[in-house]
């Protein structure tokens, strides 16, 4: 009897692991420090990965379709003081990780709206990625903030109009380990997504900005979780480790399709816990 139970449990655990890993895709825009007060330029690494797995992460080419064609980034918005500009043409293609998948480098500097102080919101809108194991397309509208001189300008605003979005209600560049982080999930029209399912992952590695790869041992075992928003789209989370945490509200864009397949249009937000 005990043997049977163990076998059943193994199958159950196995299917849970497969299930969770199939949902743990994360579009990322990474820069070493979200406080950029002393910087004249801010380098970003833009990649599609499984950050909680650290160096073992399975990386994917951004915007790879069912035919294996890589369409990359559709829009790459920089938002500052309410003004939004698409800098997709400023992205430099790079190869990321051991499998040399397609990723990008981006530099926020004088040529890309980096002047003065305040928040800069970076919003990535990649072309949908075909996930063969689920036979669906995934498009993660992803947002991250950096801040200069502690001046507050944009972080609490809706900045990805027309797309699903996670709007933080705690400053994402001034969140603390052990402190409460809150946010609200909204759909393409800015309406709250009731009981949104949210994958949470911790960036469980260092990023080698020069060689475009993860390095170092995993920092923690507590690197992934699943939470739900309340009836009004609000959710809470307490970061347990220092560094970047990602929140992916699955299917926040509503029921959508792309090239005859189901499209999961997710809203992703990255915050840095200090």
């Amino acid at each position: 009897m005990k043997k049977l139970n163990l076998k059943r449990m193994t199958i159950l655990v196995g299917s849970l692991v497969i299930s969770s890993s199939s949902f743990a895709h994360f579009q990322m825009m990474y820069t070493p420090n979200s406080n950029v007060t002393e910087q004249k330029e801010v380098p970003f690494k833009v990649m599609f990965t499984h950050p909680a797995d650290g160096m073992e992460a399975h990386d994917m080419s951004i915007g790879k379709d069912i035919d294996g064609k890589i369409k990359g980034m559709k829009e790459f918005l920089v938002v500052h003081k309410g003004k939004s500009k698409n800098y997709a043409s400023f992205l430099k293609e790079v190869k990321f990780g051991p499998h040399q998948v397609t990723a990008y480098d981006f530099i926020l500097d004088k040529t890309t709206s980096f002047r003065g102080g305040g928040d800069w919101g970076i919003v990535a809108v990649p072309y949908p990625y075909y996930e063969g194991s689920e036979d669906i397309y995934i498009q993660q509208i992803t947002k991250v903030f950096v801040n200069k001189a502690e001046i507050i300008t944009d972080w609490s605003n809706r900045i990805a109009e027309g797309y699903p979005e996670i709007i933080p209600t705690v400053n994402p560049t001034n969140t603390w380990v052990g402190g409460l982080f809150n946010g609200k999930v909204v759909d393409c029209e800015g309406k709250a997504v009731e009981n949104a399912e949210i994958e949470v992952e911790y960036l469980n590695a260092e990023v080698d900005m020069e060689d475009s790869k993860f390095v170092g041992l995993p920092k923690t075992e507590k690197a992934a979780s699943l939470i739900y928003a309340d009836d009004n789209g609000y959710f809470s989370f307490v970061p347990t480790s220092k560094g970047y945490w990602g929140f992916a509200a699955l299917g926040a864009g509503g029921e959508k399709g792309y090239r005859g397949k189901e499209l999961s249009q997710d809203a992703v937000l990255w915050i840095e816990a200090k």
Partner: protein
Amino acid sequence: MKKSLMLVFALVISIMTFAHTPLLMVEDNEDGTVYAEGGFSNGASAGGIEILFVEDKPYKGLEATFEGKKIIYKGKLDEEGATDIIKPNVVSYQIVFNAGPGHIVYKSGIRISISERSDWKEKLEEIKEEKSISEKWLKNIENK
């Protein structure tokens, strides 16, 4: 009861007074001017707040002073809480964001570099022509 309400009210006001820290950032435009931007930690606008250049030492003369230092220039931030100002022709100075008592921030000024000296002269002539800065401050900025 009335007294306790007043106490609570006074406490709230006191907390509000301290809940917005003034902020100032200064950047070198490298063209003979500096960029100054103010703000508050609670996101309140710094539009119209006073911005000053002052000498980096105590002053006991007859000209206008701010906290015991000679004022080189006095102006206001624009509606977005920022401004570009021509650098003063002095070795050392301070930039002051003056949002009232308890809300004052000082930052070191950025001096004119050799490479931008000709740009600076050009800017100065433009300002003289446009009369965009009063003669009183222009005299201090030019510092002949």
